[in-house]
C-alpha cells in the first residue's frame, strides 16, 4: 500500500513537472495565500494574547497588604503632560525580608528615584517645574525600571524611596473621583504578587481583541481556501489523466494532499517569519492608546503551530473539494451536472439565528453575549449569502436583455457558493464597518483645568493662601462647599481646595508639581475625563475598527485577485468558445464584472446595514448612542469597496484578451 502511494506521488510529481511554469506559479500563489492568511491570523492572535498579558498587572501594583510589617508602600496616580502617571512610594526598615517586586533588584532608598524609561524621557524634556521637581534629584540621577515592572513601554511610573514614617506614606484624606490622583493604595506590605486586573478596561480589551479575531476569521479562511482552489482545473486535468492511467481515488487524493500541504507549509513558514519580522513595527501600533512590548505580541508557540496547521488544513480541504469530479469518475465532470442551487432552508436557519441573537441581547448586555451575537450574525450572513447570490442571479438573468447580464446571472445561480466565496471577504468587512461605525461612540469630553487638594478643615484657609501664592493670581482658588459634587468623598474635619488653572497640560502639570507635598501626605487630584475608562474603551473600538477593516479589506482583495486569476484559467475554454462564435472581448469582460459587482454591491449594502442594526442593538444594551456620521462612513465603505474590487477585476482581467484568444496552436495542428 505504502509503495503504491509513493509511486503515485512520484508519478504525480512527474506529471506536474510536465507543466513546470504553471506548477511553480500555482505553488507560489498558494503558498502566498497561506502566508498572508497565517500572518493576519497571527496578528489577531498576537493582539488577543497581548491583551491578556496586559491584563495581568505587574507585581508592584498589587502589594499584599498586612496589618504590620517592615516595608510600606503608597501607590497614587497623578498626571504629567496629559498622561496618567503612577507614583509608588516605598519605605523599608534595614534588613526587611520582603523581596522587591519584578522589574527592580532593590527598592529605592530614601531620596532615591527609579523611573520608567518613558518618565525619564518626559521629565528630561519638560520644564522641571512641570514634572521633575515633584521628585528628588534630577532625571539624570534616577534609576531606570525594568520592563517587568511595566505594562506598556510608554507607561509613566516612578518608584520613590522615603523613610519609614514619612508623611507621604499616610492614608489620604480624600477618596473617590475618577481622574489621576484618585487611585490610592497605602499600608504595610508582606510581599508582591501579580494578579489579573479585572477592571472594565482590561476586560474590554480582551473582549474586543477576541471580537477582532472572530471578525477576521472568515476573511482568513476565505483567503486560505482561495489558495487551495487556485489550481482546481489544472489539477483536475492532471489527476484525471492519472486516474485514466490507473491511479486509485486514494492515490489521487494523496497526490493532492502532498502538493497543497507542501505549499501550505511553505506559506506557513513564510507567514510566521513575516510576523516575527513585523513584530517591532506592530508593537508601535497603539492599543488602548499605548504601544506594545514585543514580548506581549508573541502568541504561545502551541497557538502558532495550531494556527499554522489550521491554515494548511483549510488549504488542503479546499484543494480536495475541487477533486470530487475526478475522484468520482476518471473522465471528471467539467460541466455542471446540475445547478448548485440553494434552498430557502438557509434563509430560515439564518432568521432563526438572528432572532435568537436579538432575544439573547434583550436579556443580557454582557460583553460575552455581544461577542457571541456578532459571531452568530456572521455565521447567519454566511448561510444567507449564497442564497441571496442565487436569487440575485435568477433575477439578473430574467431581467437582462443582453448576453452579458444573462451570462452573469446564470453564472451566479449556477455556482452561488463559489461567487459568495469571492465576495464574502468584502461583504463581511462591510458588516464590520457597519458594526463599528455605529458602535464607535464619541469619547468623553475632557476638563483638565481643575486640581483638588485635601487639607484638614482647621488649616484649610492657610492652605488656600499657600495654593494661591504657589499658582499665582490667574488661578481661582476656593474651598468646595460640597466635595461630592466633584465626585470625591472626605472624612469629617477634612476640606477640599479646588484650584482652577488655565487650560493646557503644562499649566496643570505646574499646578500639580506646586501642590505636591504642600499638605503632608496629600497629593493633588486632577479632575480629568469623567469616564476615562469609557474613553479607552472607545479608543480600543476605533483601533479595532481600523485594524479589522484594513486587514479584512486587504485579505478580501487578495482573495478576489487569486480567485479571479483561477477563474480566468478555469473558464479559458468557455471564453475562447464565446470569442470564436463572435462575442467581443467587451461582452466577456462585462459578464465577468457583473458577475462579481452586482452581488457585491447588493450584499455589501445589506450586510453593512445588518452590521449597523447589530451595533444599534449593542448600543441599546449599553445605553450609549451612535456616531452621527456613521451613514457617511458606511456609504464611503461600500463605494470604496466596490471601486477597489473593480480595479482588482480589471487588473486580473488584463490577460483576458490573450487567454481568451481563439485559434492558438492546437494539439492536432
Amino acid at each position, binding site marked *: 500500500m505504502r509503495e503504491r502511494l509513493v509511486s503515485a506521488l512520484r508519478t504525480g510529481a512527474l506529471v506536474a513537472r510536465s507543466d513546470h511554469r504553471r506548477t511553480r506559479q500555482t505553488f507560489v500563489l498558494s503558498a502566498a495565500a497561506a502566508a498572508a492568511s497565517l500572518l493576519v491570523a497571527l496578528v489577531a492572535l498576537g493582539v488577543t494574547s497581548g491583551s491578556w498579558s496586559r491584563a495581568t498587572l505587574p507585581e508592584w501594583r498589587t502589594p499584599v497588604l498586612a496589618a504590620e510589617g517592615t516595608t510600606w508602600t503608597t501607590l497614587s496616580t497623578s498626571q504629567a503632560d496629559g498622561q496618567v502617571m503612577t507614583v509608588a512610594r516605598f519605605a523599608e526598615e534595614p534588613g526587611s525580608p520582603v523581596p522587591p517586586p519584578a522589574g527592580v533588584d532593590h527598592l529605592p532608598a530614601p531620596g532615591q528615584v527609579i523611573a520608567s524609561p518613558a518618565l525619564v524621557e518626559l521629565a528630561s524634556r519638560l520644564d522641571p517645574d512641570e514634572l521633575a521637581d515633584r521628585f528628588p534629584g534630577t532625571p539624570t540621577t534616577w534609576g531606570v525600571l525594568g520592563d517587568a515592572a511595566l505594562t506598556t513601554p510608554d507607561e509613566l511610573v516612578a518608584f520613590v524611596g522615603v523613610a519609614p514614617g514619612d508623611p507621604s506614606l499616610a492614608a489620604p484624606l480624600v477618596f473617590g473621583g475618577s481622574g489621576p490622583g484618585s487611585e490610592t493604595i497605602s499600608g504595610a506590605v508582606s510581599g508582591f504578587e501579580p494578579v489579573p486586573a479585572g477592571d472594565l478596561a482590561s476586560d474590554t480589551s480582551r473582549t474586543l481583541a477576541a471580537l477582532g479575531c472572530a471578525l477576521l476569521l472568515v476573511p482568513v479562511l476565505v483567503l486560505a481556501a482561495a489558495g487551495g482552489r487556485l489550481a482546481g482545473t489544472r489539477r483536475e486535468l492532471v489527476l484525471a489523466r492519472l486516474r485514466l492511467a490507473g491511479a486509485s481515488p486514494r492515490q489521487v487524493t494523496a497526490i493532492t494532499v502532498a502538493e497543497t500541504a507542501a505549499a501550505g507549509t511553505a506559506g506557513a513558514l513564510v507567514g510566521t517569519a513575516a510576523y516575527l519580522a513585523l513584530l517591532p513595527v506592530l508593537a508601535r501600533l497603539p492599543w488602548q492608546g499605548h504601544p506594545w512590548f514585543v514580548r506581549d505580541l508573541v502568541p504561545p508557540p502551541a497557538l502558532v503551530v495550531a494556527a499554522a496547521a489550521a491554515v494548511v488544513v483549510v488549504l488542503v480541504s479546499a484543494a480536495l473539494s475541487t477533486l470530487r469530479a475526478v475522484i468520482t469518475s476518471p473522465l471528471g*465532470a*467539467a*460541466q*455542471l*451536472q*446540475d*445547478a448548485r442551487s440553494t434552498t430557502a432552508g438557509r434563509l430560515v436557519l439564518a432568521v432563526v439565528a438572528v432572532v435568537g441573537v436579538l432575544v439573547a441581547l434583550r436579556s443580557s448586555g454582557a460583553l460575552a453575549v455581544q461577542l457571541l451575537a456578532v459571531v452568530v450574525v456572521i455565521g447567519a450572513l454566511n448561510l444567507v449569502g449564497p442564497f441571496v447570490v442565487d436569487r440575485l442571479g435568477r433575477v439578473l438573468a430574467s431581467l*437582462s*436583455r*443582453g*448576453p452579458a447580464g*444573462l*451570462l452573469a446571472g*446564470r*453564472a451566479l*445561480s*449556477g*455556482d452561488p457558493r463559489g461567487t459568495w466565496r469571492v465576495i464574502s471577504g468584502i461583504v463581511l468587512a462591510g458588516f464590520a464597518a457597519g458594526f463599528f461605525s455605529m458602535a464607535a461612540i464619541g469619547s468623553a469630553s475632557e476638563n483638565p483645568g481643575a486640581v483638588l487638594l485635601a487639607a484638614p478643615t482647621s488649616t484649610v484657609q492657610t492652605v488656600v493662601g499657600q495654593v494661591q501664592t504657589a499658582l499665582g493670581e490667574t488661578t481661582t482658588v476656593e474651598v468646595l462647599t460640597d466635595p461630592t459634587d466633584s465626585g470625591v468623598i472626605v472624612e469629617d474635619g477634612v476640606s477640599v481646595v479646588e484650584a482652577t488653572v488655565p487650560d493646557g497640560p503644562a499649566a496643570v502639570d505646574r499646578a500639580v508639581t506646586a501642590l505636591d507635598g504642600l499638605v503632608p501626605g496629600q497629593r493633588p487630584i486632577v479632575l480629568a475625563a469623567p469616564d476615562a475608562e469609557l474613553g479607552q474603551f472607545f479608543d480600543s473600538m476605533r483601533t479595532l475598527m481600523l485594524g479589522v477593516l484594513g486587514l479584512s479589506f486587504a485579505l478580501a482583495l487578495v482573495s478576489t485577485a487569486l480567485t479571479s486569476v483561477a477563474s480566468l484559467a478555469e473558464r479559458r*475554454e*468557455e471564453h*475562447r*468558445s*464565446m*470569442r*470564436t*462564435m*463572435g*462575442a*467581443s472581448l467587451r*461582452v466577456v469582460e462585462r459578464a465577468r464584472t457583473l458577475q462579481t459587482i452586482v452581488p457585491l454591491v447588493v450584499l455589501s449594502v445589506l450586510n453593512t446595514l445588518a452590521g449597523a442594526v447589530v451595533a444599534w442593538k449593542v448600543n441599546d444594551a449599553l445605553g450609549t448612542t451612535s456616531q452621527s456620521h456613521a451613514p457617511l462612513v458606511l456609504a464611503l465603505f461600500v463605494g470604496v469597496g466596490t471601486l477597489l474590487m473593480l480595479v482588482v477585476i480589471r487588473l486580473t482581467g488584463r490577460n483576458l484578451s490573450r487567454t481568451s484568444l*481563439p*485559434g492558438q*496552436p*492546437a*494539439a*492536432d*495542428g
Partner: protein
Amino acid sequence: MSAVVLSGRGLVMTYTDTQALAGVDVQVGRTESVAIMGPSGSGKSTLLHVLAGVVRPTAGEVLLDGDRVDRASEEERSLLRRTRFGFVFQSGQLLPELTARENVALPLMLGGTSRKESIARAEALFVPLGLDGLERRRPGQMSGGQAQRVAIARALVGRPSVVFADEPTGALDRRTGSEVMDLLTRTVRAQGAAFVVVTHDPEVAAVCDRTIHLRDGVVLSDGVVPPDGVHPSSGPVTTTGAHRA
C-alpha cells in the same frame, strides 16, 4: 462545385517556431461540404481557424463572397463570425450555466437580437434537431449526443453562410457520432450553407462532398470522395489547391 463562397490563397501561418501552414490554396462552394483531414500537427485546425477569421494568416488572403477577411479588424471579424459563420467543436463547448435554449440563442443575442426573439428562434430549431423537451436543461444534464445537437443548433441559428466543425464527433461513440454527423450535414445542406469540417475520421469525411488532405502545412490532395470512401494516401485526385512539390 457550386459558386465559391469562401476561398484561401497562398495561406501561410507561422507561430513562434512552427510553420503550421506553408502556402495553402482552398476553395469552398456555396452549398459544398468539405472535409479537412491529416495527421496530428498537419495544420488542419489552423486552416479552419484562418478560414473562419479566428486568426489572421501570416501571409495569403481569405475571401468571403469576394471580401477580404484577412484584412478585417478584430471587431469586423467578430461580426463576421457572429453573422456569417457557425461553429461546432469536439465537446460542444456549450456554456455550462446556460440552458440549452439560451446556449442556442446566445449568438443571436451577441449580434444584438432581442432576447425574446433570440429564444423564439432558438426554440424553433429544437424539434427539427430532435431536442424537443430539452430546452431548459443545462449541458451537464444532457448526453454527449444531445449536447452536440444543441451545439449544431447554436451553429445554425444565425443562418450562417459557412458552418465550421472541428472534430464534431470526436467525443461521441460510433453510432451517436454517425447520427450527429448525418444530422449536421443534412441541416447545413437544408439551410443552403457551406460546411467545412476538420476530422480524423474517414466516415465523417465520407459524408462530405470533397476531402482535403494536409501534411506539414501543405495540401497533399484535394478531391471528390471516391464511392468507397477510401482516400489515396498521396497524390492529387481533383486539384484545386497547392501541392507539395
